[in-house]
């Protein structure tokens, strides 16, 4: 069998970036939540907020650490597998990606240490300030990354000289046409991820009667937040979709499973896209609904996939179904948030085991939604690496063979499996260990902001005492 370096490289990049993305998407939302908790404690002096803030800061430290580890690999991926692309786009992507690194280092050096280790060493106001700066810093980091990605989706502010992109306007390039939509959609996704994870973990504690007062507060707060953010995300997603329709019509056509350009396009709920015959083998849909959503008129014309030649089409089935997974989870999230509102009466939301268990399961859904959303936008622009200008095949490292790509693909899967298994296992131990700070420092441990994991002291292989200490919570 002939190994295709192009396919294997795309698979490798998808794997590495997906694996990496799950950490920052959580920490960005969580950082803001921690800042809010610190703010509430500062204002009300209620100890429950402080306990929550401390607990979630420990979780933040571990997840941030895993994000840093998996991120190191990212900064080399572009060069190893996509060297033609790196060389051609370096005038823009080099500085923009470097600025992300610069932001992250500045953040770690200046504020992360104060947030993680400074609780008893600096005044409370300074500590709160550090928490806010860390939250802002995570957004600035994602700002640069999403600017780079958006520029590849909707390139702007450049001219091509000799196969290389030269920037004519930094402002147009950084704030390219799809940037703000993507930034808003992704920022909201981070909040939702943080919200659902905190809600799920709080529900887990409530199911076990541990730290009831603090976790009730946390869950209540999350449910209010999610009630507003889940529908807001649907609205932002709709605007993002309209922006995509304007700049990348083929992607929207694939999302809708619409092969021929026309009006009264149905909203397909189920379909089996058949790329070979350029049609759907089977479909169930709501008549004219896609036209109404995308153009606000039943007669609205929606572009079809067949507008471009088959070799310039994205993998339709993948885009179509990933989009449905993302939207389906979105509606599920809205449903859970509304159910939370209805169950507030008589405090059912904090007692009903079925609802609490549902919340625990919901922890995985924001991650699935984020990953399927990225598959939609990344696979949906195929075969373009820089949309309309450079294809994946043109961007690939010319010297790369299938064997080399397969070797590192297997290697990265092996390395990341270890990191992921150890990391998630440790995280569950931190959670099971409880919200009380055990603080019996392991011998020799030195707390450093550039080693965020040193902020968590839970042992990894001792027997845990799962102390149900809810009674002395406040």
């Amino acid at each position: 069998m002939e190994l295709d370096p192009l396919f294997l490289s795309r698979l490798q990049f998808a794997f590495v970036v997906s694996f990496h993305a799950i950490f920052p998407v959580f920490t960005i939302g969580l950082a803001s939540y921690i800042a809010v908790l610190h703010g509430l404690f500062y204002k009300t002096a209620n100890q429950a907020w402080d306990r929550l803030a401390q607990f979630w800061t420990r979780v933040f430290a571990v997840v941030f650490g895993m994000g840093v580890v998996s991120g190191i690999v990212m900064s080399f991926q572009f060069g190893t597998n996509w060297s033609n692309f790196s060389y051609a786009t370096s005038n823009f992507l080099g500085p923009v990606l470097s600025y992300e690194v610069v932001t992250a280092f500045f953040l770690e050096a200046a504020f992360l240490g104060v947030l993680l280790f400074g609780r008893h060493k600096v005044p409370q106001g300074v500590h709160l300030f550090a928490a806010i700066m860390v939250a802002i810093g995570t957004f600035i980091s994602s700002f640069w990354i999403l600017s780079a990605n958006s520029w590849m989706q909707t390139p702007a502010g450049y001219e091509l000289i000799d196969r290389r992109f030269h920037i004519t306007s930094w402002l147009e390039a950084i704030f390219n046409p799809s940037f703000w939509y993507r930034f808003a959609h992704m920022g909201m996704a981070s909040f939702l991820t943080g919200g659902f994870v905190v809600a799920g973990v709080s529900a887990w504690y409530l199911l076990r009667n541990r730290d009831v007062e603090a976790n009730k507060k946390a869950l209540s707060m999350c449910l209010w937040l999610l009630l507003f953010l889940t529908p807001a995300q649907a609205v932002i997603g709709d605007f993002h979709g309209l922006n995509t329709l304007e700049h990348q019509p083929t992607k929207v056509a694939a999302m809708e499973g619409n092969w021929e350009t026309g009006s009264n396009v149905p909203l397909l709920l189920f379909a089996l896209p058949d790329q070979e015959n350029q049609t759907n083998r089977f479909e169930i849909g709501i008549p004219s609904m896609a036209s109404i959503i995308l153009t606000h008129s039943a007669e609205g014309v929606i572009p079809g996939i067949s507008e471009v030649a088959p070799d310039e089409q994205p993998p339709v089935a993948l885009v179509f179904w990933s989009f449905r997974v993302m939207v389906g989870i979105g509606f599920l999230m809205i449903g859970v948030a509304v159910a939370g509102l209805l169950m507030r009466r008589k405090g059912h939301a904090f007692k009903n085991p079925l609802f609490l268990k549902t919340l625990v399961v919901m922890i995985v859904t924001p991650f699935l939604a984020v990953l399927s959303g990225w598959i939609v936008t990344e696979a949906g622009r195929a075969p373009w690496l820089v949309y309309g200008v450079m294809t994946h095949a043109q961007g690939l490292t010319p010297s790369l063979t299938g064997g080399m790509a397969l070797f590192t693909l297997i290697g990265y899967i092996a390395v990341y499996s270890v990191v992921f298994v150890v990391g998630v296992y440790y995280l569950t131990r931190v959670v099971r260990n409880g919200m009380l700070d055990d603080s019996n420092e392991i011998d020799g441990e030195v707390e450093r902001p550039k080693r965020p994991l040193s902020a968590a002291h839970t042992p990894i292989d001792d027997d845990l005492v799962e102390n149900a200490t809810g009674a002395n919570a406040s």
Partner: protein
Amino acid sequence: MSIDLAIIWAVIIGFGVIMYVIMDGFDLGLGILYPFAPDEESRDVMMNSVAPVWDGNETWLVLGGAGLLGAFPLVYSVFLPALYIGVFLMLAGLIFRGISFEFRFKSHKNRRWWNRAFFLGSAIAAFAQGAVVGAYIQGFTVEDFRYAGGALDWLTPFTVLTGVGLMAGYALLGATWLIMKSEGHVQQWAYTITPKLLIAVLAVFAIVSIWTPLVSPEVYSRWLDQFRLIWVFPVLALLCSGMVYRSVKRQNEGLPFVMALGIFLFTYLGLIASKWPVIVPPNYTIWDASSAPESQLFLLIGFLFVIPIVLAYTAWTYWIFRGKVKVGEGYHH
């Protein structure tokens, strides 16, 4: 204008590389020495002596990788494809090493496993970096600004030698660092292994010095035909080696480490002097490899902002954690 920027960036990247080599070098070296330590107590001391600083050391690696893409994209887009397998091994080694570093602290029952991962990760990363240096001396097959060689061009007898050489060099840095940071039986052990490591380093140094002009004609002409002043670097490196030996015999504590740093610094300067201004050997200079001037300038603003902060932060960390690490305790504050 563009010429000035390329030189400024060459200085920044060159500075970043030596900072990384020196700073991550000694803690990788301790990892390499790990299985040879006399007992678990010494291993604790070794790890505690780098715990506060090793993380910051790797800052320079990421900063360097990102800086290369922004300032010298040709280097980035030729080296990484050429060193494809080596880069993977290095990253895998560094990741395992980082993970085992963190979890060894949190582990009581399974420390042996984390010890092994720490050693293997450090050794692989050090070897891969040494092989990269060798591959750099050899030069790369580049056509039309693209790497055109094979997957394992970087792995030759010469680069295996430089890989082993850098492992020995890092181990030397690690041992002398340990002399400075420890006391008692741990320090005595470090005193005994340092001369052996020094001999290994000098042996590789000698072979590489004779071999390099043979694998690289440009280097040959520079050393033997044109530029006699260049000989000052190997002479200084040898002087430093002598000083390492003497200071170990006299049981000095700080001097062996400083002199070991000197060996690295002068070898590095000698290497740069053999190639300058070529940055992608054998043909491309720093000006060929540069990104557009406006991109170099844009990025320079950010780096000029962050480098002083990273330096100040680094200096502060080393200052806070100065002094000896005692058996049975970490730094406590």
